[in-house]
């Protein structure tokens, strides 16, 4: 005797990659086409009611994706989607004088400076479900493991990437911010180059 198996309705791939419309910068309309890369769906249409426990995608040290599902345990959210502190915010200094603040412990000639963090433009960033690279996620490299792997978070140094698999290379985008103009590079490209190994690095060292 076996229980009757009632198969659940499956969502077809055509439903997954259906384009959707959104309005950006309050007036500009845009057609967004979701894409699936290595099992990760980018530019997916946001849910009508945002789910605080929506899964997000983490990366292992090689750069392979792994879906993380947040859950609530003892009133706390475990494995919540990552927060990025002030890494992607723009800092500006605002100056206040005594007349503006009227602080009781301030001299009339004093000037108070406050750092103001401005959020980045999330128009395109919000469509990426993968965890972003920030300096606190750098892995150390080098023989003594004392050199930060900037600007890369994944893959880790000396990790083995196998043929046929897709790995996500991630870097800290603000690493390419110019100190003079305070502008971040708009475009980047990835290079792979062969290196010549010395005999001892190949494992043929002197005995």
């Amino acid at each position, binding site marked *: 005797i076996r229980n009757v198996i009632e198969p659940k309705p499956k969502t077809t791939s055509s439903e997954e990659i259906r384009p959707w419309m959104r309005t950006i910068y309050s007036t500009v309309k845009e057609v967004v086409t979701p894409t699936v890369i290595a099992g990760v769906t980018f530019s997916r249409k946001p849910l009508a009611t945002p789910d605080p426990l929506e899964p997000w995608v983490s990366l292992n040290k090689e750069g392979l994706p792994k879906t993380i599902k947040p859950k609530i345990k003892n009133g706390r959210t475990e494995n919540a989607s990552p927060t990025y502190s002030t890494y992607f915010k723009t800092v500006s200094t605002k100056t206040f004088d005594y007349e503006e603040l009227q602080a009781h412990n301030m001299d009339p000639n004093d000037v108070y400076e406050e750092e103001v963090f401005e959020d980045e433009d999330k128009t395109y960033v919000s469509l990426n479900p993968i965890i*972003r690279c920030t300096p606190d996620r750098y892995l150390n490299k080098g023989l003594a493991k004392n050199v930060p792997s900037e600007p890369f978070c994944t893959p880790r140094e000396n990790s083995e990437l196998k043929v046929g698999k897709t790995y996500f290379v991630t*870097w800290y985008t603000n690493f390419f911010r110019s100190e003079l103009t305070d502008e971040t590079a708009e475009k980047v490209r990835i290079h*792979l180059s062969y290196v010549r190994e010395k005999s001892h690095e190949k494992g043929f060292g002197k005995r």
Partner: protein
Amino acid sequence: DMRATFFSSEWIRNVDGLYPLEIYEEWLNGKYERKVVLSVQPSTIPDDEFNHLEHGLLINIALGSRVFKKTKEQLALEDAGIMDDTWYYVALSIPTAVLIACVGMYFFLYLNRHNRDISDVRRFALSKRRRVIGKFKDMKKYKNINNRRYDELPSYNKKNSKQS
């Protein structure tokens, strides 16, 4: 050295901060594994000024998983001069031959089951059988016999003059 660069992606948006990198077999140039440097070039740095090693990351690209250690059996076979898989076929052929012989014998006996007479063999075998009577202590007849332990009998040897 730009001459060593074998892959350069198209210009992509920096704001995404990620690039899906698929590894191809032709990058290995027939080798099993190669060390490569991964670098990211911003559009603000021209090609001739970009140093791949400045913030490059050393990674390995490989064909697949590697099995390093050989078992003792493999080493023994190599010592015996068997380098390929022939031993595998030899080892398989022996039990296969035995199995085929057993199946053949079964069918042979099955087909000749009405044409054989082994009554003399059966009679001889039955005549050889002995009745098992079991242990002495388990016999009903002798069960109540009080079989005492052996005690040494007392001895009254007189000591002769030499011993005293």
